[in-house]
């Protein structure tokens, strides 16, 4: 046996690439419309106006309230910034709810991808017991919540729509660990579509 020697194409030289000026307009990276998610009728956004907490002690209650105020714009006023490293924000729905869909906007003020995005549900506000993972694209297990199998995605004005499959929970926690653009963590809006658990 001998190693197979492959003849590979060499890199072709390229001139100065186009410069993209700084702007808040993000062109869609795909022209394919997002497939609609089918959910039971009569759901509402349960996150609106709920109590929010987070891992960054510098974030004030007023700042966190922006995450459920319905403002999903890409402006500076709509986005809150959390420190570097793995950070989370947590939604308290007040009582157990049946969740079918979650929409999440980190920041769509420029084309970027958030890393180690994890969404977990629990009846324990400290997320120690009975923790269920709804979404996890932390394929390197950087945040220590297990190796994720979901794909990373681009931030767009559409937000990330996650199928929660009717999970019953009171608390939801949203993790992230910086983006392709910055080590900081941005959050713009969280919507949770569901109904009271039977």
């Amino acid at each position: 046996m001998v190693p197979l020697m492959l003849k590979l194409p060499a890199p072709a030289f390229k001139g100065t690439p186009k410069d993209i000026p700084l702007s808040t307009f993000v062109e869609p990276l795909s022209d394919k419309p997002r497939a609609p998610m089918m959910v039971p009728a009569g759901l509402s956004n349960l996150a609106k106006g709920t109590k929010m907490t987070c891992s960054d002690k510098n974030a004030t209650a007023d700042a966190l309230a922006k995450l459920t105020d319905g403002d999903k714009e890409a402006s500076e006023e709509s986005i809150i910034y959390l420190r570097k490293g793995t950070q989370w924000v947590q939604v308290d729905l007040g009582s157990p709810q049946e969740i079918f869909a979650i929409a999440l906007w980190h920041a769509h003020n420029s084309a970027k991808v958030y890393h180690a995005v994890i969404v977990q549900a629990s009846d324990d506000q400290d997320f120690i017991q009975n923790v269920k993972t709804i979404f996890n694209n932390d394929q390197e297990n950087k945040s220590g919540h297990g190796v994720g199998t979901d794909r990373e995605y681009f931030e767009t004005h559409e937000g990330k729509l996650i199928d929660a499959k009717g999970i019953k929970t009171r608390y939801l926690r949203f993790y992230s660990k910086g983006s392709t653009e910055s080590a900081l963590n941005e959050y713009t809006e969280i919507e949770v579509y569901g109904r009271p658990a039977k």
Partner: protein
Amino acid sequence: MALALRLPGLNLRPMHNDEAVNAIKFGQLWDHGGYRYDPNEHHGPTLIYATAAWARLTGAPDFGKISEARLRWVTVLFGIGLVLLLPLVSDALGRTGTLWAAVFTAVSPAFIFYSRYFIHEVLLVFFTFLALAAGWRYWRTRRLGWALLAGAALGLMDATKETFVITLAAAAGGLAMNQVWNRLLDASGPPVKAERLKAWHAAAAVGVWLVVAVLLFSSFLTNPAGPLDSFRTYLPWLNRAEGNSPHVHGWGFYWERLLYFHPGKGPVWTEALIFGLAMVGTVAGFRRQRLAGANASLVRFLAFYTLALSVFYSSLAYKTPWCLLSFWHGAILLAGVGAGVILCGLRHAWHKAVVCVLLLVGTVHLGWQAWAENTTYAADQRNPYAYAQTSADILNLVSKVEALATVTGQPDQVLIKVMAPDQDYWPLPWYLRAFHNVGWWDHVAQEPYAPIMIVSASLHAGLDEKRTHLMVRYFQLRPKVFFELYVEKKLWTDWLARQPPASSSE
């Protein structure tokens, strides 16, 4: 001061597309002894040969082990050279003017940023200044040696970048306009005891120019087509100059960057101090008053030359920000004169002291901007001189590929396939230069699968659909340009198994 602002953190900013292209071209020369001038792109050979000389002088290792800093040292040295050449024109700018021109050359953020940038621009400005300074010395002395040096500098300009013809045209225009001004409006007269110009001196200078250019373009007489290609190059470049290029910008493109640049949150960037003082120097040159030892005729020439150059560059549709160095250097020389004019025009010592302090405060502000542009904002879109800059995230991609390759046991032999439309994968050829099995495609390869695949997100390749590979992460090449990193499933799980247990998040 020039060194202190140019040297720290030379490895910090990720390699730009153009720097990487120049680096790979140098690598081909360094490792394989081959360089061939390409008339379609990538400018002349001086940068590559100067780098080879520097590498030999400093005992550089194989190309795979050469760092960004070692390459960028070359342009740093030419940037420093602009300060060191100033004594040649001290009798033209005046002693005070020369001193302040040295200070502004040392701290100008544009000059510092592009002195740390492995492209041709600072070399062009250096050889231009060498030609002007040698020309000035020849004008003053009529010694053949200065004429020959000016000729050599012209040859080096020619072999550096095609835009040297713009500089030549601006210098010729500046000379002509200055002659008209001298004869018709304000005859300051030729230098005292000046001899007539000797035609054979000029012919010898042109001869040296041609010899230098032919030697370099022909790769030291190994590429006979090179000298002819140095003329053919103007066809594609004229095409670009007319606007057939992704670098078409408005007339204010350069001035916005130099005088007031403030996109989004971040500092206001400005070199308006230099511009303002250049205006003072220009006015003094035309009025021939309080010139503080500067030569009025030379100052007027510099003003005409700088104006012509800036108008020419601003009116061309094709613009990249480093092109501004050519005319901004003229402005810096005039600013030195301007500072001298102001200081020497003041009678009282304390007035001079106050102005000196103000100039120093302005200098510190310029120096601070330069520092910020080369550290915090080195790869930031809010930096006026970072243009189509590679994002810092690309270094994360390189680290990840290196870590994955280590798992295979033969890191430099791992098969890596890179796919991106329009060859938009630079500077990766530089960063992956130590790997021996890297293939490059401008589309999704017919047989795309490999242990590691780096694929432009714009190709929507979906190479994880068969579940044999995972798309483990997106990486940003430049703003709005992304790569997907695909890894063979087994390689990924092997890599994961070697990672220390992740601590649960805070």
